[in-house]
């Protein structure tokens, strides 16, 4: 502490110091001084919280949209269900609009227009991210369902099983293996995209880093630190996912 204050004074006064002493001052003021590491930690907490909620919303929305769109596309001719058609139409608009507009714009519309009076910025951010993620997730799930050989559906139906039963026991279990790697990828994108919610005031990791930058007038170390934390989070998650996938493959006896 005293050592930092002494060195800081030297650096501020423009006295000659070694590179190491300068590095020490910058790292100390970015992470340790006034317990600033706690701000980052709070930021990470919010980041993970927003990611978790957005993921839940995204997977839930994605599942529903994917199921409806797949079921709609696989209807027999002359047996079209009007209600299914209407829901499918709405979901198509949802996917088109969400995929066709930037995430940042969606956040601003949600944060400053629709939920302008809300003070829970993190939750508004999580909701926006979830809705955004749902559109992509639905396409991932739909792709996985479509990737299962058509012969599987035909075999199930030829035995007299209904569409729902064939989906549940035959198609979905096979689709999961194709869906998981892409879903993991979507999760990683989601985790990193939480950094955007700072624009509507969400107090996540980047918000914390920016707070430190505005106090210290030094941008390099807070942002490098934040980048490193994201990297570690993503690597940890990738590792967990690979374990999970290996488990799935173990049941895939060949």
């Amino acid at each position, binding site marked *: 502490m005293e050592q930092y204050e002494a060195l800081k004074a030297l650096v501020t006064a423009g006295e000659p110091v070694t590179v190491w002493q300068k590095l020490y001052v910058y790292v100390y003021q970015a992470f340790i001084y006034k317990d600033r590491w706690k701000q980052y930690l709070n930021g990470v907490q919010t980041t993970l919280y927003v990611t978790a909620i957005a993921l839940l919303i995204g997977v839930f929305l994605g599942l529903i949209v994917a199921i409806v769109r797949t079921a709609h596309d696989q209807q*027999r*001719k*002359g*047996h079209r269900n009007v209600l299914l058609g209407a829901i499918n139409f709405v979901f198509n608009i949802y996917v088109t609009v969400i995929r066709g507009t930037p995430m940042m714009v969606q956040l601003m519309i949600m944060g400053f227009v629709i939920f302008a009076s809300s003070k829970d910025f993190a939750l508004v951010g999580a909701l926006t991210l979830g809705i955004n993620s749902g559109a992509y997730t639905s396409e991932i799930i739909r792709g996985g369902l479509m990737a299962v*050989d058509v*012969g*599987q559906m*035909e*075999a*199930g*139906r*030829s*035995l*007299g*099983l*209904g569409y729902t*039963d064939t989906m549940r*026991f*035959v198609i979905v*279990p*096979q689709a999961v293996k194709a869906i998981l790697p892409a879903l993991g990828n979507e999760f990683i994108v989601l985790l990193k995209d939480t950094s955007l919610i700072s624009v509507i005031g969400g107090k996540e990791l980047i918000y914390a880093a920016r707070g430190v930058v505005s106090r210290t007038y030094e941008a390099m170390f807070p942002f490098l630190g934040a980048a490193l934390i994201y990297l570690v989070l993503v690597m940890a998650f990738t590792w967990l996912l690979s374990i999970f996938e290996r488990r799935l493959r173990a049941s895939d*006896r*060949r």
Partner: protein
Amino acid sequence: MIVVKNLCKDFGSLRVLNNVSEHIEKGECVVIIGASGSGKSTFLRCLNLLEEPTSGEILFDGVSMTDPKTDINKMRQKMGMVFQHFNLFPNMTILKNIILAPVRTGLMSKEQAEKTAMELLGRVGLQDKASAYPAQLSGGQKQRVAIVRALAMQPEVLLFDEPTSALDPEMVGEVLDVMKQLARTGMTMVVVTHEMGFAREVGTRVIFLDSGVIAEEGTPAEIFGSPKSERLQSFLSKVL
């Protein structure tokens, strides 16, 4: 048992089946032959509505399959199908493959279905494969399991869509043997195949499809012994 009236099927602007009418009686083993693209698989797949006919009517046990009010799942339970590429469910063991439909449709209890499955597997010599996965079986074994899976629903008719075309030559025999055995028990069968030996030996009737119409039909002796149309003669000269 199955009555087909003026069946037409279009794929886009291509007419694959053109006004096909046919009666299939109980206990018959009808073999459908023809060049590739002649519409034989499409005809078979129309019978259980895996392909939706463009026009025409299909009656099964007097019930219209093409009527939108017909419960198609109920009807399909009575007509089994065996595919060229087996289409076993790779995520389930052989036993699960076989009992899934009988149990889910409420035809049998789980115990009953398992007992039936083991009996049927015994008949095709695959009892020891019950807990294996499809990927662990040879092509011939997979197709025998697929036949058992269809039989477990106790269907009134079995449809075979080129059941030996995807098999290595040395495995064709074991599948044909099972089919012959089935035909002898009086099972009604409709078989699309390129196995002329099977058609001649087991078929009670042979249908020759050409460009979406029935060009000629008759007993195996008539079709193979004295083909009338030029098209059939040239087809047979190529495949025999």
